[in-house]
């Protein structure tokens, strides 16, 4: 197993290809942040009062952090994972008390001019602790008790983040379901079942609940006819139908009584139930206009009118993909998506080549979290998922997000480089 991208710089074989992908995303991010906040009257590239000026500091410090992580002994991360977890939980509690309220979410702790966002680091700590906990039970066959305890590890920060309330960040934790799937805690049918649940949720809200139940009944009927000789399958189909119907009613109930009105609006917009380009739909509409108007080759660097003239709110953070879509067009978008996909597949491959369950589980956690952010963030800018404010990893402006994703990724690289050294 010789790989040209590895050498022995950090006491092991570092996966330089992943580092290259990481660096590419950071640089793409920096240029697009520059475009998003570009002001023709102050064209300097390193003005420290601007977002792109600050981002260059964040990228530089992220590099130092990355190097530090690679130098520190790998055992440190596994041994201290409970401590990290405890610290972030405390920070999540602290943010509820002393946090700064920005855009309706109490998610930031101001430290000087910098604003720390504990929820970003909570994903990292949760990932580490989950890996440690599951790997400790990896010699036994997967059982419900371990699954439940693992779920508690995830749910604790989720509840605290929901209290801010930051639904987007909270949902990101659920991406760790892939980890349970890989480790055998969740079976394939249950994953399908989950996918079905999401599908039914969307369909119920998009269409009438009775229509959804009618269609489900028809499909069940067809299934019963097809499997008429197999009593067992018929039984499970009927049970599935009953559960689905109940679930559909629950969704309707949750939607009407539990979701907050802004969440309902966002969901409605995505489902096309609400057409309101001046009000709540403004951001999504302008985002689609920006991306759609980029066409094949894009308008060119610093030439995007939607970008330059601030038509899309939050454009350097959550909606950074608009700038990419507008100025670099379909070609640029495909390049970015290609880099992400390559990175994700690479991480899964890295995970599978780990010798320890801890490193493997952790790497899957990293893949899951990055995948969720990638899919949901880009999905919301092009109108296929509801708008939930989560950043695009390594590209969106922001120190907390860049650092936490960098740490997340480089701890994995450290495990990978050091896999011979870890017991």
């Amino acid at each position, binding site marked *: 197993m010789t790989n040209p991208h590895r050498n022995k710089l950090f006491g092991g074989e570092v996966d330089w290809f992943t580092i290259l992908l990481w660096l590419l995303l950071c640089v793409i991010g920096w240029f697009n942040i520059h475009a998003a906040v570009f002001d*023709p009257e102050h064209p300097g590239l390193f003005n420290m009062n601007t977002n792109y000026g600050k981002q260059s500091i964040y990228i530089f410090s992220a590099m130092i952090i990355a190097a530090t992580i690679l130098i520190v002994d790998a055992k440190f991360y596994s041994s201290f994972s409970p401590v990290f977890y405890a610290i972030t939980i405390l920070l999540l509690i602290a943010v509820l008390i002393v946090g700064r309220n920005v855009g309706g979410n109490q998610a930031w702790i101001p430290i000087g001019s910098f604003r720390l966002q504990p929820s970003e680091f909570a994903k990292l700590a949760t990932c580490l602790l989950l890996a440690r906990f599951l790997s400790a039970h990896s010699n036994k066959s997967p059982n419900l008790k371990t699954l439940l305890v693992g779920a508690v590890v995830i749910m604790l920060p989720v509840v605290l983040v929901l209290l801010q309330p930051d639904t987007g960040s909270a949902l990101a934790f659920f991406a760790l379901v*892939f980890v349970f*799937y*890989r*480790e*055998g805690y969740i079976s*394939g049918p249950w994953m399908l079942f989950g996918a079905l649940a999401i599908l039914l949720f969307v369909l119920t809200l998009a269409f009438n609940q009775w229509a959804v139940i009618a269609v489900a009944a028809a499909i069940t009927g067809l299934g019963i006819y097809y499997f008429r000789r197999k009593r067992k399958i018929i039984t499970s189909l009927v049970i599935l139908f009953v559960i689905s119907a109940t679930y559909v009613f629950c969704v309707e109930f949750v939607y009407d009584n539990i979701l907050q009105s802004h969440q309902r609006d966002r969901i409605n917009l995505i489902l096309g139930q609400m057409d309101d380009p001046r009000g709540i739909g403004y951001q999504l509409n*302008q985002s*689609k*206009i*920006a*991306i*759609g*108007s*980029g*066409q*094949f080759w894009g308008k060119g660097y610093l030439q995007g*009118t*939607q970008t*330059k*003239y*601030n*038509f899309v709110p939050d454009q350097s953070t959550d909606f950074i993909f608009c700038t990419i*879509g*507008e100025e670099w*067009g*379909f070609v640029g*978008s*495909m390049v970015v*998506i290609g880099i*992400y*996909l390559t990175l*994700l*597949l690479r991480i*899964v491959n890295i*995970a*599978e080549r780990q010798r320890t369950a801890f490193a493997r589980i952790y790497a*899957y956690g990293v*893949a899951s979290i990055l*995948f969720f952010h990638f*899919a949901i963030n*880009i*999905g919301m800018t*092009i*109108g*296929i998922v509801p708008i939930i404010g989560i950043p695009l990893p390594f590209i969106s402006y922001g120190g907390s997000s860049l650092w936490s994703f960098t740490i997340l990724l480089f701890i994995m690289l450290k495990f990978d480089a050091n896999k011979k050294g870890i017991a």
Partner: protein
Amino acid sequence: MNGLFERKYIIQGIFIAVAIVIASRLFYLQLIDETYLLSANNNVLRKMVIYPARGVILDREGKVLVQNEPVYDLLVTPREVVDLDTALLCELVGIDREGFERRMTTARNYSPYKASQFEKQIPASAYAKLQEHLYKFRGFYVQNRTVRNYPDSIAAQFLGYIQEVNDRDIERSNKFYRPGDYIGATGVESAYEELLRGQRGVKNVMVDAFNRPQGVFAEGKYDTLAVAGDELVSSLDKELQVLAEKLMRNKIGSVVAIEPATGEILTFVSSPSYDPNMMVGRERGNNYMKLLNDPFKPMFIRPIQAQYPPGSIFKVVNALTAQQAGMIDEHTIFNCPGGYRYGGGRAIMRCTHVDGSIPLVTAIQRSCNTYFGYSYARMIDHRNLPTAEAYTLWRNAVMKFGIGESLGIDLPGEKSGLLPTADYYTKRYGNARWGSGFNISLSIGQGEMGVTPLQMANIMAIVANRGFYYRPHLIKAIGEKKIAKPEFTEKISAGVDAKYYEPVVEGLSRAVNVPGGTGYSVRIADIEMCGKTGTAQNPHGADHAVFFAFAPRDNPKIAIAVVVENAGYGGVWAGPIASMLIEQYIKDTITLPKYIQDRIFNADLLPKLETGKSTEADKVTSSRRADPRKDPEEEPLFVHHRILANRHD
């Protein structure tokens, strides 16, 4: 490694599937659906209209009649206003605190981010002071525009005025005009609107999400420049117009002078007039109401809208048409016993004098009613035709002189005048057995007849030309183009051969140049002026004085008609005015005795107004004519024959 290893492919498969979903959605957004590109352009592009300067109007010598003067609109973008020194601003703009708040509220209601008008048409003098302090008023901008300016304050009815378009104008123009645009409402401004208005330019400006301008789009590649309106050269002689308006001051009436060789109108006075500058600027609204409520109706364009029984000038037309019809010739002699008896001798149309046997030339010179009574009777009664047919033949011949239909001058609102048809009389008298005795007043231009001062002047132009005219017009050239409209160069025949004009011209010459002639007192040394006094009957009060003339007799340079309402005898008031204008135009000097000049300049012939009682002018010009653009209803001019009995001049 365990059996769960294969799940890696499931997970990677999910990652790939999701990436494909995103990619296909991007494919649709960026490559298939074109509407997003349009929306993006709509977002940032604002088309700003650049207003062209309206065309200037010059007199025939190239002197300015109307020009553009810069004024300044003060705009405000309410959102940008900070630390405003309200008191100073109010003082500079000339408004009070309340007015300030009202304007700010209006602007804020329009849009906090967009600039809107705060105060319009600040004159240059006030702007100079404001400009010095403008830097202190953040959020306030000045936009300059041009308004009309009339350096000599003359020719108001001729030039007309412009006003903001109303909804109907916008609709009629197929949305060419936008609210706030100006359009020519009357006069030349209206007649030549499409040339004067020029071409608007468009500047494509990019704006940000808050509609704040961010610079030009595509380096101005799609911008168009505004093209200034065409320069119009009018036929008016400014000096002559100024003199004519001075002479007509404090009188009601009209002066129309035409260059016979071209049909170009040299002078076009409607009196009382007004200063056209009143229709410009911040006081426009008040002034407009003032003019509308003025009992003398200054907005009424008398030269083309006032209609009078023409009086003696019509004898000229009758003399010519009767010759052409072969009913009389220059040797035809009628006996004048001091009046023309008709209706079997029961009625009489009197003359001022008893001339006995009188030939045509003398009849014109002395304006003999009897002579034209006879000649008209021949035209109607002695042609071996049914009366209606004979009358129609006569009427058609008369109409060729531009009577009874509009001449097609390049001004809106021209009246056609009045010349009844045969049917009118047949209906009025119940059968076709009427004859010349039933409307004998037409022989001397009285009765059911209406002729505008423009038509009178045109008749003189026809006589001056010995048989033809060019459509009278006010604009002779457009920019570099020497011809305004092709129809103005078309020679129009009056239907009477040139040879028949000589006795008439001789008679008109004698009326001025032979002692005892009605115009002898206003004759001009060195210039053989041919003309006549006339009296236009006024059933409502004192008659209107009329004088019409052309000069010189050979190669005439000017044909003129002067009408002074309620002034009585034509020779006293209208004659001197015509004489002075002709001499001024031809010789650039006036030799008429000073005391006559002073009498004219100083005369105040305006009817005395009594409060609560409608005035002469009101009746004559009809109070319904408040809006000069609206066609006043026809007002048949009817004079009973009994009044005619003692008519003479």
